[in-house]
């Protein structure tokens, strides 16, 4: 039987999907070694949602995505921004290495139109990443739909949401909480497949990575990480 299957798979007409061992597919490198190291696919999950819980603007929350978006520019796919709170500023994006020809700005009215646009973009298969700032309109059912859309479109869906959602369940494969200190951006992995609880400090503006800060409320998480 096994032999027969192997024989079959040698047929060039048959395409094999790439399954990484242990069922975890390689992600899209974040560009930050310390972060890649703790993420299951060594990067932002592809074909899945990533929730970024953040309450303040101007702490480097977008800079965190820039290395991945610059790399995604190599793909012949869109990088969609659905109803962003401000203008994604072209000169700054270009300086970060993002190809502006890949940028798709979608302005939809808040509510059903925005949800619909996010779902369409995720599911279409033609967006490498989709960035959105959905908030109250997202219930668990809708999140599951978006998660399915991201899967079918093999897209990386970034959802920026306020941190008070932290205690609500979410189907997203990855949840990060980000905060800032005077030393740099603090990224806390709240949920991911396999392990969670890691906290690190990243200097997102200079692409400089600092080692995991053990004193930043990470004690419990660290222990859990060791158990795995």
């Amino acid at each position, binding site marked *: 039987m096994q032999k027969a299957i192997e024989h079959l798979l040698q047929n060039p007409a048959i395409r094999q999907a790439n399954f990484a061992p242990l069922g975890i597919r390689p992600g899209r490198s974040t560009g930050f070694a310390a972060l890649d190291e703790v993420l299951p696919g060594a990067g932002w999950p592809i074909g899945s949602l990533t929730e970024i819980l953040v309450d*303040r*603007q*101007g*702490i*480097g*929350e*977008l*800079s965190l995505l*820039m290395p991945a978006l610059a790399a995604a520019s190599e793909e*012949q*796919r*869109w990088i969609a921004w659905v109803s*962003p*709170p*401000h*203008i*994604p*500023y*072209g*000169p*700054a*994006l*270009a*300086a*970060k290495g993002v*190809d*502006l*020809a890949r*940028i*798709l*700005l*979608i*302005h*939809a009215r808040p509510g059903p*139109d925005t949800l*619909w*646009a996010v779902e*369409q*973009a995720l599911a*279409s*298969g*033609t*967006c490498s990443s989709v960035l959105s700032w959905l908030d109250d309109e997202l219930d668990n059912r809708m999140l599951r739909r978006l998660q399915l859309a991201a899967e079918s479109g093999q897209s990386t869906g970034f959802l920026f949401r306020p941190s008070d959602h932290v205690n609500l369940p979410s189907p997203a494969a990855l949840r990060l909480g980000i905060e*800032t*200190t*005077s030393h740099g951006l603090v990224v806390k992995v709240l949920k991911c497949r396999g392990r969670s609880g890691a906290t690190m400090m990243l200097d997102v*503006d200079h692409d400089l990575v600092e080692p995991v800060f053990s004193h930043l409320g990470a004690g419990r998480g660290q222990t859990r990480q060791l158990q795995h």
Partner: protein
Amino acid sequence: MSLYFPTLALDVVRRGSCSTEPLAILDNREQRHRVLLCNRSAEASGVRAGMSLPAALALEPALIIKSRRHQVEQTALTSLATWAHAYTPKLSIAGSDELLLEVAGSLRLFGGLRPLTQKIIDEIEHMGYGVGYAAAPTPQAASLLSRAPGESLVTQRDALLTTLSGLTLATLELDRKTATTLTALGLESLGDLLGLPRPELKSRIAPGLLNLLDRALGRRPDPRTLFKPPVRFRACLELPAPTANSQALLFGAHRLLKDMDAGLRVRNEGVAQLLMLMHHPRGRATQIRLGLVQPSRNAEHWQRVLRVRLEQLTLDQEVVALTLRGGAQSPLAEQADDLFGDTPEQLGTERVHLLERLQARLGDEAVKGIALVRDHRPERAWQMAIPGVSSETVSTGRRPLWLLREPRGLQHPKSQWRLQGPERIETGWWDGVDVSRDYFCAQTETGERFWIFRDRRSRTWFLHGVFA
């Protein structure tokens, strides 16, 4: 080759829906309403062609009844003729239910008569039409043979006489008087008829008949008017039952879109605009205008665009018929029909399709790209653009990832803020929107970083960007 559509009056209605409720078409030429054609599920209840309406209703109370609409049938035949252009440029419409195709020139391209015939018949049946067909060296013979049961693909002129002789007189569709005369003479087949002396047939029985038989046998020229495909696509479809259900409407619309696809395929052309009219029992038809970024003939693609629009629409009346009108046709770039190809061009088309779906619901202005502009004023160093356009790189100082839509007035920056700068931007005198500003990167005491400036003339501060 003859393609004969005996059930056209029924098919134009039946193909509009996927339901199989009993359906009958009434012949409205006669005073008394009689069933002209009915579908299988009506037949199962005992309804037959020629039956009177009350009798049919007695057998099947749930029977859906439609009057015959010649206009709709003609439109359907025209769109079939447009489709058939893919197989031969020489074809004509005969009567109200037949197409005659000159296929001799197309045989080599399609690998012979049988494969060609198979392909044509498969496609017609897929479109939802019942068809009789036959091939013969003369159009008239093909026409007669297509009405007879069984398949006739005659290629030799010598075989024509024998084949035609076997046909019954019913295939001639004679008027009742002539038919009675012939039967009284004991004639049953075309062979019997051809055995009669020519003068006898010409003068006594049916003068036109001799002419017809001569044309069938190739003894007389038989010129036909060639069909010219219409410049713009137009088709309509009557729905078996009135509906406001978007799934049912999409099913019907899909039929029309497939017709359009087939018609445009011939010339490898596409349209960028479509108008869908949804006719109600009374009042004006509801119109949906659809537009694409690039012309397309792909029925599936148009269907997706239409679905988006239909889902948004609330119909306050039921729809009884659909009309689809195409805009100006333009040539399509050569591309493979391979749906599963993931070549860059294929993905390119898919990428455009996403834009079109989004625009269909959100509006044209809601979907944009970003381009850089050589201008020192930050708010003019970029602009909205068609998605996908490339920009020349312009190097600038440090810029924030968020730019505010309008600079926002600010109190004097707090003393705890750390300011880096200034970067002086002073330009624009030539177009009257001149600026003179000192920009700073400001880090607040809580770690946020903003892009702020001081207007040098008013000496007031503004927030202009966020280092997100």
